């Protein structure tokens, strides 16, 4: 019986030891190898003093050592803390300190960054996965793997034990750190694996870094059903022709990424030159898929089924909508409905359930919801809506901060973020709505609209747009277009044309960062 994540590999190693569990470029690791190597890492960590409930950092690019790190840490009874290697060092240092981390697993390509990190983090006792840093702290894999596994008695790991802590990008203010348990991830694995019919012949692409909740599909659902997970290296997300070639070569059957990655393949990945016929599910989440791009992609890949997923990282994911037909422009696609083991309510600002069809905040109760925010009880308390059933028995719903309404079919429609709506000179302005309008212009590939508070009674709307390739977009024409397409109070005061946006490490447009940059001008 599987009740913790490490047992997925243990079970696989006993049922089909020689089957490939993960692949990365021309390398792969079987279930048996992964089981043994992660045992050896767990043994090493325990001997180094790691106790149940401790946190161990994973500071790695996307590579085949990552699953060894993840399962080794879990087998030691610890929680893994995946870190973004593209983040500034100060931020990495903050996470190490915030989580009281003494041990870290890394990879040779991070050698330089790790060397500077170690200098500022004297509390680190061991850095596993590199041998080049000569400070007595680095531990090469050879040393870890030279340990015999005979006699290794792993600690008991329960489903309610902490499995990982995910940090938000926190471009403004202090980052939030979500605590997820084994149960939280396993609940998702079971529900989603069943819903989309993951099977042993599937080849599941991992299109997200380890610190991003979307990677769970490949990392955990794939081995759970005995399918191989394909880790796509960081380099391919910058080189879209290579990404297309890799997806073709690996015959990936399940794709789950942010829309941005799919859009890049559509527009810059020489999509027509590659064979994507193995794809059976194209799943996306994280931000709205720009309809004209989704439509073009669905027409390009008529053999694949498309699914729109939704869920804050606090819940990992919780709703889905199968897009049956290429969408018509101007009709947003629904978020859909919650899957099994999950329920929701739509609440007004007084926590009352809204009338059917009215807009309110979505609150979700699901097994894959986080335990709370690490070291922040106050924030955790605020994050949940507590429905008291009887004294001592509450139902906890996570407050998503997302505005939704049900359409006449009972499907959820995303109406924007709580913090993406504002009152401007007496009018309610929805920033996402302005973006939608801008995107209707053929010359616009992507758009971000932010509100900049110039002083107490003057807020300015600024649109930053990325032109479609080959277009001669100028702000003047676009401003005229806005004036014909939206009410005057919603027309952005300035339009900036840029080659690209600041993005979060998963590829989403980082609107908070844009706002910060523009405010400081």
């Amino acid at each position, binding site marked *: 019986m599987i009740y913790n994540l490490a047992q997925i590999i243990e079970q696989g190693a006993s049922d089909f030891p020689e089957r490939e569990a993960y692949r990365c470029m021309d390398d792969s690791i079987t279930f048996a190898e992964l089981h043994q190597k992660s045992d050896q890492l767990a043994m090493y960590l325990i001997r180094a003093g790691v106790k149940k409930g401790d946190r161990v950092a994973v500071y790695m*690019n*996307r*590579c085949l050592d990552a699953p060894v790190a993840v399962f080794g840490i879990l087998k030691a009874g610890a929680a893994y803390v995946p870190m973004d*290697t*593209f983040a*500034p060092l100060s931020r990495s240092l903050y996470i190490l300190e915030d989580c009281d981390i003494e041990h870290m697993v890394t990879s040779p*390509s*991070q050698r*330089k*960054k790790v060397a500077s990190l170690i200098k500022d983090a004297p509390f680190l006792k061991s850095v596993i996965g590199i041998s080049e840093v000569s400070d007595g702290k680095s531990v090469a894999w050879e040393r870890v793997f030279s340990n015999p596994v005979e006699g290794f008695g792993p600690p008991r790991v329960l489903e309610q034990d902490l499995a990982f802590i995910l940090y938000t990008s926190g471009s403004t203010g202090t980052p939030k750190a979500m605590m997820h348990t084994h149960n939280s991830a396993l609940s998702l694995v079971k529900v989603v694996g069943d819903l989309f019919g993951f099977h042993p012949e599937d080849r599941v692409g991992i299109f997200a870094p380890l610190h991003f909740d979307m990677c769970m599909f490949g990392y955990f659902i794939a081995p759970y059903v005995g399918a191989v997970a394909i880790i796509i*290296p*960081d*380099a*391919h*997300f*910058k*080189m*879209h*022709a*290579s990404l297309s*070639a890799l997806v073709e070569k690996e015959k990936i059957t399940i794709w789950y990424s942010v829309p941005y990655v799919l859009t890049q393949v559509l527009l*810059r*990945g*020489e999509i027509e*030159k590659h064979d994507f016929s193995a794809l059976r599910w194209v799943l996306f989440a994280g931000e709205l898929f720009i309809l004209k791009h989704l439509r073009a992609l669905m027409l390009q890949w008529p053999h694949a089924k498309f699914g729109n997923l939704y869920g804050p990282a606090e819940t990992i994911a919780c709703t889905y909508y199968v897009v049956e037909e290429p969408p018509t422009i101007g009709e947003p696609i629904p978020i859909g409905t919650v899957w099994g083991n999950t329920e929701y309510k739509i609440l007004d600002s007084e926590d009352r359930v809204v009338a059917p069809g009215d807009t309110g905040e979505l609150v979700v109760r699901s097994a894959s919801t986080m335990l709370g925010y690490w070291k922040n009880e106050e924030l955790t308390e605020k994050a949940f809506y507590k429905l008291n059933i009887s004294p001592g028995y509450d139902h906890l719903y996570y407050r998503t901060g997302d505005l939704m309404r049900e359409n006449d079919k009972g499907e959820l429609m995303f109406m924007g973020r709580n913090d993406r709506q504002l009152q401007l000179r007496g009018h309610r302005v929805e920033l996402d709505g302005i973006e939608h309008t801008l995107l209707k212009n053929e010359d616009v590939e992507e758009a971000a609209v932010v509100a900049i508070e110039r002083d107490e009674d003057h807020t300015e709307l600024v649109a930053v747009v990325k032109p479609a390739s080959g277009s001669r977009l100028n702000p003047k024409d676009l401003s005229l277009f806005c004036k014909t397409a939206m009410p005057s109070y919603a027309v952005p005061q300035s339009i900036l044309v840029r*080659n*690209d*946006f*600041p*993005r979060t490490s998963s*590829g989403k447009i980082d609107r908070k960062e844009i706002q910060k940059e523009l405010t400081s001008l």
Partner: protein
Amino acid sequence: MKDKIIAFLKNEISEDPNEEIDPRDDLLNSGIVNSMDMIQLVLFIEKEFQLVVSPGDMTVENFTSVESIIDFISKKHLE
């Protein structure tokens, strides 16, 4: 050519101008160049070395390291 590219990476891309960049360092997987930097780097190469980088040229092989970028530029100049 090599020095020009390394100077650009150090001054315009890297967070730390004192960072040593070896011509064989992996630029794409190590965290030296992110996707926004990539656009800048391609614009720089197009302008500095008078060539056009097409979508089909955007491959890991062509941009993995300073060395592979140099090979790519030489190949383009022969076309």
